[in-house]
């Protein structure tokens, strides 16, 4: 199959430097796909040559026909973990030995999936170390993947990646999937424009390496959680291969970067001018929901950030008070009181440590999660915009078709046979395009519905997990506080 197809034109964003990369990875993926197309593989964990069709989704005819068949087998709410997307070579039923479980109850809950989840992949990003020096110094992170999924060649892989590699991965995935309606997790940010302290300063603060490592780790986890992306060759290559071609186009000031910015501006303008007739109330409602959620989450995020800041401040002040109390205890000449004051100083010092830990918990659990979701929602909104663009394209195609038809009619009257043939050809072409556009639109709408459903489930799950962790940390803090103060009480009472 690979021989028939030419490498597809890169969709959307023109990124000349990445072109070779994509082709290289596409070619290698196709080879892999060929190799792994054996019946044994099909039944095991449903990973067949999924990669190949996705790259070539612009090829109109056979793929999408099969794809629509494929997708319609699932009801929109069902979440087939490892067998999304067009996989023409595999019949859907055999993919998942657990497929029969799906027939049981229509509403899937995430916990049921969890139970049957052999979604057994653990990723950790650790050990930031500085490589190189001077101008070319960068931070390299160790990415460790432990998995039992068979799409990976080894059980445990450990590679070194630098930050721009993550950005490169994101831009590749975005260019491939955003316009067909998949929610691509947003790229980790190099630095954050912090809205600190009542908007006094929106300073761009460079994240420290550990926070960045966490960010990258969460980014990867989100990416692989999405079944379509997990099978993507770029993702696989990212996680597995020891050498990754430098993603140069992710640098802010590169040609590609500037082009990206121009595109973004153009998109923004287009968004304002496209007035879409929303036929589907679901989409309208969801969009509104996401707008609201966006605003609320941003506000919440800002509050939590200020909480983290103040708690850090509290811990510093408590520490300095502890020192001062210790000095006071020293200079006090009444022995029992002096001892009590020193004890008080010790208690306060322990409490300060406690505050620091709590601040860390606040930050790493809640604040980061909120930040991630704020960015994710931007991605979701982006996907909705893509749908609008697709609709606009479809409309344009229809308009063109209309025009061609009118032109043909005119030519009919004028009776010019040679031009007539050409006109007929054009009409056929544009009819094809209209059909294609409508199919695209349908496809993207379906995808979005599914993605949004999955997103919401994931959101609830994420938040719930985090909240429980946070509550546990709170309980622990209170426990410690009680312990410290109860130890101090007899000292205070012993002052004679």
């Amino acid at each position, binding site marked *: 199959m690979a021989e028939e197809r030419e490498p597809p034109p890169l969709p959307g964003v023109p990124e000349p430097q990445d072109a070779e990369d994509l082709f290289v990875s596409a070619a290698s993926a196709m080879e892999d796909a060929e190799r792994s197309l054996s019946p044994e593989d099909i039944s095991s964990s449903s990973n067949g040559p999924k990669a190949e069709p996705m790259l070539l989704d612009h090829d109109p005819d056979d793929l999408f026909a099969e794809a629509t068949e494929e997708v319609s087998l699932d009801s929109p709410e069902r979440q087939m973990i490892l067998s999304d997307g067009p996989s023409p070579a595999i019949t859907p039923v055999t993919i998942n030995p657990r497929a029969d479980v799906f027939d049981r109850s229509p509403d899937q*809950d995430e916990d049921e999936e969890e139970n049957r989840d052999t979604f057994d992949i653990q990723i950790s990003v650790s050990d930031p170390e500085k490589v190189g020096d001077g101008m070319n110094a960068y931070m390299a992170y160790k990415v460790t993947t432990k998995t039992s999924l068979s799409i990976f060649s080894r059980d445990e892989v450990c590679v070194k990646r630098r930050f721009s590699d993550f950005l490169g991965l994101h831009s590749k995935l975005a260019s491939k999937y955003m316009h067909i309606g998949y929610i691509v997790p947003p790229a980790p940010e190099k630095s954050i424009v912090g809205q600190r302290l009542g908007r006094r300063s929106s300073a761009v603060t460079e994240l420290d390496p550990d926070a960045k490592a966490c960010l990258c780790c969460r980014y990867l986890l989100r990416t692989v959680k999405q079944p379509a992306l997990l099978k993507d060759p770029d993702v696989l290559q990212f996680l597995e291969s020891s050498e990754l071609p430098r993603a140069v186009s992710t640098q802010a000031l590169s040609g590609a970067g500037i082009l990206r910015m121009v595109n973004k501006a153009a998109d923004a303008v287009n968004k304002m001018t496209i007035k879409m007739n929303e036929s589907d109330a679901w989409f309208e409602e969801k969009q509104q929901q996401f707008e609201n959620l966006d605003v609320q989450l941003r506000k919440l995020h800002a*509050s939590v950030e200020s909480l983290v800041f103040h708690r850090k401040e509290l811990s510093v002040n*408590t520490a300095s008070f502890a020192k001062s*109390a210790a000095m*006071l205890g020293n*200079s006090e000449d009444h022995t029992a009181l002096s001892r009590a004051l020193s004890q008080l100083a010790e208690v306060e010092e322990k409490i300060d440590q406690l505050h620091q830990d709590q601040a860390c918990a606040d930050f790493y659990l809640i604040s980061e999660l909120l930040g991630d979701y704020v960015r994710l929602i931007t991605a979701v909104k982006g996907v909705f915009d893509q749908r609008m663009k697709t609709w606009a394209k479809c409309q344009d195609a229809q308009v063109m078709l209309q025009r061609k038809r009118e032109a043909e009619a005119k030519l009919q009257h004028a009776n010019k046979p040679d031009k007539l043939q050409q006109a007929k050809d054009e009409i056929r072409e544009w009819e094809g395009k209209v059909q294609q556009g409508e199919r695209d639109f349908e496809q993207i709408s379906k995808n979005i519905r599914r993605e949004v459903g999955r997103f919401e489930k994931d959101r609830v799950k994420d938040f719930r997990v985090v909240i429980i962790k946070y509550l546990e940390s709170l309980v622990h803090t*209170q426990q410690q506080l009680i312990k410290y103060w*109860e130890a101090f*009480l007899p000292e*205070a009472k012993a002052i004679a």
Partner: protein
Amino acid sequence: MTSISEDSDKEKVRSVSVDLNNDASLVIDIPDALCERDKVKFTVHTKTTLSSFQKPEFSVPRQHEEFIWLHDTIVETEEYAGLIIPPAPPKPDFEGPREKMHKLGEGESSMTKEEYAKMKQELEAEYLAVFKKTVQVHEVFLQRFSSHPIFRKDRNFQIFLEYDQDLSVRRKNAKEMFGGFFKNMVKSADEVLISGVKEVDEFFEQEKTFLLDYSSKIKDATAKAEKMTRSHKNVADDYNHISGALNSTAADNNTAFKKTISVCVLQKLEDRVASDQELKLTELLRYYTRDIQAAKDLLYRRARALADNENSNKALDKARLKGKDIAQAEENQKQCLQKFDKLSESGKKELTSFKARRVVAFRKNLIEMTELEIKHAKVRRLKSNNTLYGSKLSIFLLCQKSLGY
């Protein structure tokens, strides 16, 4: 206008100085106070069995300036040079809450109605706390006088308690302000003096070293404690905002969010802890900073008397040498010596009782603060546990539902 008249609260609050008001022959308290704009009008209520007063029970309205007048008058009375003069109460300061109220009013449009109502409630509570504090401080000031065997007989004190007309204490004019400034300069010169003068009495030598060192330490501790409680308040405010934001988010759908709201509500207890800490520890430290200063003042006066004594001795010797004004010099010297001895004697008594008083107050205060911390931490832990249990339970129930049970 706010008024205050709860006794039980004041009982809790009054731990900076203990063992006052035990003597039923003269009982003073401030049961009521009114706050208008900048001025606070205290109602000073006296119950007495002493014959020096005209009535057994009476009340007069007093303002802050009149308290300061009383303090200054007593300081200037020569007779009391050997006593520790209770420190003057600080001026009622509503700047903090007032500024916040102002900011709240400005930001009203940007927040939801519930948030605004909640913040307003909190500010009012803060305002009330400041108010209570200033009443307490003025009350303790008067009670120090009434419980002291010598001060309670002071004529000016009695006028303060009894005279039901306005004392017409006029504000210090420019000259007096300048005079006050000058006095402060002299005081710092005294500080040099006190460390320079050779001390014969070991008791006073020890006290001097101790007080000088302790006063700087306690000032530092007070400042740090204030910073700490301020940060604590900031954290509590943040939880306020967060719970407001969560409220609006949860209006959407999620029970998970609603759970977190209850968590944040419980975190509001942090706020209460902050103000309790403030009232207990910081007030204690603040009060004793001032008291230590008063003790130091006693030492200054004694040191000056000692210097005077030495000078008079020198003058006597010179006069004897020169052979004139001997009687005058002798008289002078005798007076100085008398004054010095009296100061030393009463000073010793005062400083000893001061130490005892201080230790007791610290003890009571620390115990109360610790007990409060424990109580609040236990409540918070209980609430967190409940919320945690509730969240886990809801997940469990959801599991059950999805599995078809």
